[in-house]
């Protein structure tokens, strides 16, 4: 591989990291409360309101049903409204975030629903408000599962970010298509794939380590 490809690969990696990091953060900011609400607004739960829950579930499912590449193109007017342009790395963050929110929400919802109902009962018996139960019981107890869910979401976002070349989003996937495929440079394609594998591997290991650190359910996790 020629030496002048190294800076291009480096830039593409940074672009990917930027898009994934920002959309993961924004996706969590939107997805975490939505997921908590989806879990707690079910019939008979803390914030029971089945109709709102049903309506939100519908929106979440609808968003998740749209293939990502179609979502990217379909929301171009919205993207232009949000970031002033429909082209480039910043523009790519809009569809990535929109895809991340319902995905993260479902992962968080599942994590919260796994929390033992006995703990909610104990907190209610203490006189805790629904908000206190969410903040002091549900989220801390679900944290190991939420961490693993977010890891999964980041890995998925790395995959999604490869498709945003369609709106000039750049990044590794775009580089692979333009150089590796269209210019027929297999060594670029190979380098892109290797970098993506390494990235996913790093994110996965990091996520698992953080999850293990916050998981106090088994005695083995005690540091000493």
């Amino acid at each position, binding site marked *: 591989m020629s030496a002048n490809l190294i800076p291009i690969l480096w830039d593409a990696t940074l672009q990917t990291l930027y898009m994934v990091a920002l959309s993961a953060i924004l996706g969590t900011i939107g997805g975490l409360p939505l997921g908590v609400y989806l879990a707690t607004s079910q019939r008979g739960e803390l914030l029971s309101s089945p109709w709102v829950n049903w309506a939100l579930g519908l929106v979440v499912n609808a968003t998740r049903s749209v293939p990502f590449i179609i979502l990217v193109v379909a929301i171009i007017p919205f993207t232009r409204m949000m970031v002033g342009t429909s082209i480039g790395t910043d523009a790519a963050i809009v569809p990535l975030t929109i895809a991340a929110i319902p995905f993260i929400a479902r992962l968080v919802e599942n994590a919260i629903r796994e929390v033992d109902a*006995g703990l909610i009962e104990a907190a209610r018996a203490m006189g*805790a408000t629904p908000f206190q139960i969410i903040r*002091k019981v549900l989220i801390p*107890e679900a944290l190991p599962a939420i961490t693993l869910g977010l890891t999964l979401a980041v890995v998925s976002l790395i995959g999604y970010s490869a498709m945003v070349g369609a709106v000039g989003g750049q990044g590794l996937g775009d580089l692979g298509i333009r150089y590796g495929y269209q210019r027929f440079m297999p060594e670029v394609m190979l380098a892109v794939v290797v970098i993506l594998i390494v990235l996913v591997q790093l994110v996965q290991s990091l996520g698992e380590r953080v999850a293990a650190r916050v998981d106090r359910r088994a*005695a083995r996790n005690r540091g000493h």
Partner: protein
Amino acid sequence: MSSTTKDAAILFEGVGKSFPKGDGTRVTALSGIDLAVPQGSITGIIGRSGAGKSTLLRMVNGLERPTEGRVTVAGRDVGTARGSALRHIRRDVGMIFQHFNLLASRTVRDNVALPLEVAGTPRAKIRPRVDELIEQVGLQALADRYPAELSGGQKQRVGIARALATDPKVLLSDEATSALDPETTQTVLELLARINRDLGLTILLITHEMAVLRDIASHMAVIEGGSIVEAGETHKVFTRPAHATTRSFLSGVTGATLPAFIADRLLSERPDGPSEAVIRVTFAGDHATDPMLSLLATELGISANILAGAIEEVGTHPFGNLLISLEAARADEARAYLERHGLLTEVLGHVR
């Protein structure tokens, strides 16, 4: 219950609970519950699973609401309280659970601190109070451990410390020892009895084990099919069980069960020809030590065979239960004699 309702810590008046079923009808879980839990008592409610005891207990802190009647704690109506009024009542009512319900993500110290955080206690006051509570249940050495590192008995001690954090007037125990081995059960029961004594805390517990009531309950109630079938001071219920359900619970705990070779041959009606009556003799208080059977032999000339028996303590009251058989023709005479001397008798059946 024998105590007046005036000094009751918890009062159930005509309480009923029914749930709507899918087909429009309702299932009745509890009906016509009248029960006064005396101030400072340890009151135990015993019943089989599904008898409604758990629903009854949960009405005291509003986790369940009655569909009929009234539940009051220290004079405050729980059933109609909502929002912050209900949360204030709940801070005066501690609760411990069969499966402890401790937060895995928090250390012992932080678990005990949770009710104080919830109540908005200033951080500076939480720490000393938590230390005091942890000492009270003897867990100083484990204060910074996580629940996963504790044994069942230790977890329940954390549960007890947590339940006491907000200085409640009443402690509810939902089968708190049912997940523990017999030895640990004893130490947890002793801790509950000590807390009751030292803090003057009223304890309402539910259990399916008569031994728990025998060991710590001053008062008890038996629940069956959603109704209370018998209630009173524990030693009185133990000596004079009026209801069949109470008797069947008692037979498991008093040690006086018929040996199988007799039980298999037991006839409910007295057969023709010579036969023996099988009689349960219950003795309590002072009579427990009287040599009644030898008196029966010397004064009436009736000799009795001892089939099974046990003497134990219910609270501070000695309590004995003896199964004997004697000549059926003279059974009435013998029973009258024993009853005259303050013993309770019951004919269980006859054997040829």
